[in-house]
């Protein structure tokens, strides 16, 4: 087992290296000049030259890369060109916000998606099934920004129930924190619940047709016991896989929702950094995301082996 893990980690190292090179070089393809952007309306040639030198922008790309990467290896991701704040500090302060949002969204998605899928499968072909399908389809096709703004107009402006946007750390005010998270999490969650519902439905339909369900029914078990205990449990495997994938997507893909609800998360951090040509932040964030994904993959592989004894011997 340990050998297996060690092997996986060794494979992860070159992947991270390749990612770091890609991040660095692709960024050079961005049009625009970071120094011009940084200097804004004050284009003093002397200052431009100084900034170019300070951030080594005139060095050849490989030289820039090694200067940056050797710092990264020492745990220094650099400082933001725009605000002077250390990149690592930015990442560590934004990541929990996005993780919290992702967890909230996931809970909402699961709470809506799985029951809806189960009901749709059990009542296949009835009006309930069709209704669930229509709701799921609209969940998939309604754009986040539209739903977000609509919710703000209705819930915050008209009814004044929740704050329109922003973020309050849970350490400061837990209740307010939850209130600010509700709408964005709902917007993200409903979008995801649609695909969860569709997957649950088809997985349930597959299971409900199998022999052991027929046997269970023939034994005279109550139908809700058959559905919840025998069918759903078995149908859950692909749903769990999907959920973890969706969760990963949420961490990186909540950009639009974070923008609308002005949540200072990971997505907003990188979008702003790209627009401001804040290279240090872009590099740091993308690298961290890549490392995070690789770590999650590694973890999934290990868990998979732990969970399924047959795989241990298959190698």
């Amino acid at each position, binding site marked *: 087992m340990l050998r297996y893990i060690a092997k996986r980690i060794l494979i992860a190292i070159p992947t991270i290296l390749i990612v770091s090179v890609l991040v660095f070089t692709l960024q050079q393809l*961005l*049009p*625009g*000049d*970071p120094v*011009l*952007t*940084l*200097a*804004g*309306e*004050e*284009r*003093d*040639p*002397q*200052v431009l030259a*100084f*900034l170019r030198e*300070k951030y080594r922008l005139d060095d050849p790309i490989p030289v820039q890369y090694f200067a940056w990467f050797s710092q990264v290896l020492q745990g220094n991701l650099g400082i*933001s060109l*725009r*605000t*002077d*704040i250390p990149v690592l500090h*930015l990442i560590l*302060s*934004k990541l929990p916000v996005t993780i919290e949002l992702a967890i909230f969204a996931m809970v909402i998605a699961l709470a809506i998606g799985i029951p809806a899928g189960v009901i749709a499968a059990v009542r296949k072909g009835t009006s309930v099934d069709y209704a669930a399908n229509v709701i799921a389809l609209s969940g998939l096709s309604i754009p986040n920004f539209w739903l977000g*703004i609509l919710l*703000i*107009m209705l819930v*915050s*402006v008209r*009814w*004044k*129930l*929740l*704050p*329109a*946007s*922003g*973020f309050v750390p849970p350490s400061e*005010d837990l*209740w*307010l924190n939850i*209130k600010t998270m509700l709408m964005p999490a709902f917007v993200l969650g409903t979008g995801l619940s649609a695909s969860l519902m569709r997957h649950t439905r088809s997985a349930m339909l597959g299971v409900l047709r199998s022999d052991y369900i027929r046997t269970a029914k023939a034994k005279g078990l109550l139908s809700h016991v058959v559905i919840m205990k025998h069918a759903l449990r078995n149908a859950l495997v692909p749903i769990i896989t999907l959920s973890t994938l969706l969760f990963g997507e949420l961490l990186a893909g909540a950009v639009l929702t974070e*923008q*609308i*609800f*002005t949540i*200072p998360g990971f997505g*907003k*951090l990188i979008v*702003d950094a790209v*627009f*401001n*040509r804040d290279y240090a932040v872009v590099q740091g964030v993308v690298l961290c995301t890549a490392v995070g994904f690789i770590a999650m993959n590694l973890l999934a592989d290990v868990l998979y082996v732990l969970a399924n004894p047959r795989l241990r011997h298959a190698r």
Partner: protein
Amino acid sequence: MKKALSILAAAATLALTTTASAQTLRIGLNEDPDVLDPHRARTFVGRIVFTSLCDKLVDITPDLKFVPQLATEWTWTDPKTLTFKLRPGVKFHDGEPLNAAAVKANLDRARTLPDSLRKSELGSVESVETVDDLTVAVKLSRPDATLLSQLSDRAGMIMSPKALASADFGQKPICSGPYRFVERVQNDRIVLERFKDYWDAKNYSFERVVFQPVPDTTVRLANLKAGNLDLLERLAPSDVAAVKADSSLTFAPVSGIGYQGLTINTNNGERSKTPLGQDKRVRQALEYAIDRDVINEVVGAGIFPPAGQPFPEASPYNDKKFAAKKRDVEKAKKLLKEAGVDRVKFDLTFGTSTTTQQIAEIIQAMAAEAGFDISLRPTEFAAMQKEAQAGNFDVNVIGWSGRVDPDGNIHPFVTCKGGLNDGRYCNQELDRLLNEARITNDEAKRKELYDAAQTILQDEVPIIYTYYQPWPFVLAKKVQGFKPYPDGMIRLKGVSFSS
């Protein structure tokens, strides 16, 4: 059920009002400011925060006159020496005294810090001398009529010299303004609190001021309507009608000191070798093809006053005789005929925003009637900046936030070596006039020089000014005493909540 809902709503409103304490003013900004060090900062929103955080030597009035702030009086002892008397008893937020030595340390830092963006603003300063504890003499290498206005902005903000030594000043700024820095969460908020020892503390009523960047204009307005914000800057023109109709809001627009316009590539590389770039009659024709009143009414909802010159209406250097030209398609066609061209093709490049897009489309349609075939090139802003410098454009839609002194609105854009002269328009006579206006302190003489310069520009048209940049503020009804300034800054003196 209904009852339960209304109780819930009441409870929520109560929770909202108690957490957002009655004496906290929340201001919605268009973007997140950059580094909070006046010498290194570059954003407009950063200047809005500094206005509450860092006092300057002098301030301005809504009609662009200079008034005392940290300096109580100033005199030109000779054309190359500007002497300031400082306000006695002023303290920095860390308790240090504000004196002549502190002012000298700040001006020296602004001039010498390698990445200071204030160097060119203080380019005429040769040395700063402390005459006595509360008197500073700024010695110049050449006369400079713009100096006082530079010192009414970031270059004149005085920070605590003791704090300047720390490496993270840009994250924990210490100045002497009415509010002191508490905390900043990037992309989320900047919190300031009342500075009890401020020299004019009685005129500032809020305990806390919170700046929140909310980039989406619709969401910014929704926050104000929902009571999460008390004041916002830069309302989208498309929301003007709705705000005016809303009795819970106050609309407070002001015509700014900046402008929007079209920069024509007249002299920057190969792309300038076109009829438009080379023949002033073609440029004049383009100007006559544009109806600025339509832009104002259709895109600007009436808050985009037509501009025909770089100086704002509030400026004493604005002259009626250079007012925006009315649209005249026949004249435009005639000018094109004189220039010997039938139809003129060019690319119009602009930064991607809804307003600019609309303006570009309107210009495209209007100019087509006079004989211009315009291709629209929406471009992301940073990319556009670089292409502009490299001369890779025909015509750019540009905006300038504006400066109090006339020099800042004209010199960098049309002098041969001007730092913001993307079209590289170059005219020796114009250079001479504008350089002289820079060193002329006498207002009447200076105005003559600018009039002469403007006469050349009106004829040569390297830039077509379209409208004056407005600063449309919106306030919750309870905010009283707010006065919009043409520089777009938010001054909180005398602003309070009505009880």
